[in-house]
């Protein structure tokens, strides 16, 4: 193995939670509301399907080939050359998605807080820190996650301070437009949840791999609950206006005012946004570096981390010309692109493995 670090199942869970939620949660309610309107809170429930599927596939593959990631597994199942092509595809895709995440992060920070700071500086610092974290190995990443993820989760509880302003009537009428808009709206959360496929890269590091599936599903449960929670609070507070906001969660945080002291909590939001994204970008970069090294059978993944970081910066700047194009990409491309790589390919590999009759590992 390239990285000999060991993490516990709980640490894996704390790594995966921000990896799915950190970037997307800010604009999630409005993107969902554009299709589902006042039924947007249901999208969370429906989106869990792909999560269940991807965790199941990843853990099944890990049962067949323990201690290996999808890159090595695909080489074993479909042969070396096709396996390499899949590996290169994964690697390029991960770099591309990391670039997108960095861009979303930067758009929020420079658009809402630091108007005059050059975006390149904001990009550079976070990618530099993430690269250093990735070079520290999975144990360092996991320890960072144990410290930062609770901050992210705990900050979400502040939304409960808005309780007096909730208007329950905003939920009704339920399903007035039928189920189709809700299904359309859940396409996007589904794509995020399918990022849980990263469990494939973490399972080989678990001290107790048997707990992997259980904690994977628990993570999914926590994520789905958080999505429902945030969607519901936004809906109860903003009602039909949700769809018009760029960052509805930011609006909701600005709304908080308690006893004249607890107000303007958007700085708290910035803090949790930064730490959450740090974990997310680091794990994406880690997975990208590992798949790069495993595809090319390098003896160490660390020397390639900084060059890949530069590649991420380039992708974050060149992929997307401006903010509206980013929104378009999120709405129309991402829901298909991410599940294609994260769910469809692994499912196919598992089916082929089944058809070829591979039941247990050589070991």
């Amino acid at each position, binding site marked *: 193995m390239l990285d000999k670090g060991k993490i516990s199942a709980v640490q894996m869970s704390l790594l995966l939670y921000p990896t799915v939620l950190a970037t997307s949660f800010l604009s999630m309610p409005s993107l969902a509301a554009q299709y589902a309107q006042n039924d947007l809170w249901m999208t969370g429930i429906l989106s869990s399907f792909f999560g269940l599927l991807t965790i199941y596939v990843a853990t099944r593959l890990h049962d067949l080939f323990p201690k290996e990631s999808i890159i090595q597994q695909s080489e074993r199942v479909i042969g070396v050359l096709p396996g390499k092509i899949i590996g290169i595809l994964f690697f390029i895709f991960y770099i591309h998605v990391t670039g997108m995440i960095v861009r979303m992060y930067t758009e929020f920070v420079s658009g809402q*807080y630091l108007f005059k700071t050059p975006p390149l500086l904001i990009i550079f610092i976070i990618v530099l820190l993430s690269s250093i974290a990735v070079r520290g190995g999975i144990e360092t990443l996991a320890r960072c996650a144990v410290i930062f993820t609770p901050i992210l989760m705990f900050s979400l509880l502040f939304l409960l301070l808005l309780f007096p302003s909730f208007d329950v009537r905003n939920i009704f009428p339920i399903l007035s437009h039928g189920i189709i808009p809700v299904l359309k709206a859940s396409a996007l959360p589904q794509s995020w949840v399918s990022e849980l496929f990263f469990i494939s890269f973490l399972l080989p590091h678990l001290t107790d791999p048997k707990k992997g599936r259980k904690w994977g599903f628990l993570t999914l449960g926590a994520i789905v609950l958080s999505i429902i929670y945030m969607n519901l609070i936004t809906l109860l507070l903003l009602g039909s206006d949700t769809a018009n906001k760029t960052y509805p969660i930011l609006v909701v945080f600005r709304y908080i005012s308690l006893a004249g002291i607890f107000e303007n909590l958007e700085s708290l939001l910035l803090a949790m946004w930064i730490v959450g994204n740090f974990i997310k970008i680091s794990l994406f970069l880690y997975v990208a570096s590992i798949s790069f090294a495993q595809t090319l059978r390098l003896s160490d993944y660390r020397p390639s981390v900084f060059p890949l970081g530069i590649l991420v910066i380039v992708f974050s700047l060149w992929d997307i010309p401006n903010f509206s194009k980013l929104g378009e990409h999120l709405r129309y491309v991402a829901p298909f692109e991410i599940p294609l790589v994260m769910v469809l390919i692994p499912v196919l590999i598992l089916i082929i493995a089944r058809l070829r009759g591979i039941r247990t590992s050589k070991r």
Partner: protein
Amino acid sequence: MKVSQLYTDLQQNEDQIRLIYANCSDLVYRSFIIEGHTKAILIYIDGLSDSAGIEKNVICPLMQEVNGKPYEIGELAERKISASQTKPFTTFEECVEYLSNGLPILLQDHEATGLALGLNKWEMRSIEEPVAESGIRGPREGFTETLRINTSLVRRIVKSPLLKMDSMKIGGYTQTNVVIAYIEKLVDITLVEEVKKRLERIQIDGILESGYIEELIEDMPLSPFPQLLTTERPDVTCASLLEGRVAIMVEGTPFVLVAPITLISLMQSPEDYYQRFWVSTAMRWLRYLFTLISLMLPSLYVATLSFHQEMVPSSLLISMAASREAVPFPALVEALIMEVTFEALREAGVRLPKQIGSAVSIVGALVIGQAAVQAGLVSAPMVIVVAITGISSFMIPRYIAGIAIRLLRFPLIFLAGSLGLLGIMMGVIALVLHLCSLKSFGVPYLSSLTTTRLWELKDVMIRAPWWMMDTRPHLTGKFNKYRQPKRKPRPKRSE
């Protein structure tokens, strides 16, 4: 120096020793004749040996003239010399070693064996209250500069023979005695091996304080955080030994090193374990809070004033703006001026003689506090921020950890002044990242904080009462996991 045997001729031996110790005026050579027939010489270093004891126990009985056959040197030790320890030796190297440790040596004519006598005695400080780690409840003994007193203080607490004390000498010229103490069957023996290996690697000319050793054996020498605990309290040392850690005691300093440690070890005060657990838990939380304040408050203030004014409630913002109206500097410069001044005052307070100490506090309180605000050089809120920060850094029980945190404040202030809240978060992430990758003798520095076994937090988030402290810390005390059988807090009804 190559090994050379003693001669049988006394004169030759004496000449050789005089040659080795040429120009050393503190050596005393006392020639006499044993029982009227054999020439002998007693050599010792003045001030390191007990001259009254030498006179009474060695010279006096030996010089009595008795008729009989002359004794061998071994027999002399058995029959005539009433010193508590005698050690025979045959080489000049041993001779030099005994002499420099204060042991008088006795050489006899026609004998190639000398005798070192356990009559070393020198002036030493008595056991006093530890200065840097004072507390209200708990033992008031502190270590001293003498290694043997320190080991005896530890041995007096842990009486089990499983407490081992391996010794080695480090330093080309100082030949400093270093003792590695651990409790067998509690400690991970590979850890002891690792400590010894690292100590043996040291090839410095002299060790004057355990700080030398600390910097020479730590895992990440460039880190601002101490990776070994320094303590001058025997109870802290013994508590660490009981948790499966290793203590390194060095001759000539009251500061004992303990390894491995975690960040939380630096936040635990010995008193936490002696007073009621509710109080200790509350104090611990207060300490954590003020550690964060000491690290971040000035930078948060600068970031708020320079970038995020909207974060402050408007009534407070107005009063803050009013007080800053006359101040000519930006918040970043103002904060730096005040913080640097405070650090200077603190450092001066440590160095100044006691008589002048009060002058510094007057200057600090009046000139830098009130007068600077009245002159419009700094704003009053900034003085408050700096004062709170300064006080809070002293909440950290380990002085050295407090200094590390105080120093890290400055990069954070710079980051806050240039990038606002984003800069602070980046600094905090970088700091956490550094702490996450830091290790102390193979134990992750944050292991007690980032563990996912909830019960490991019993001595981190709270201070669990002693009847609940049934296990040792996971990473250091894994060989003998249980401190005590599980028991209930309440005594049985019948009792």
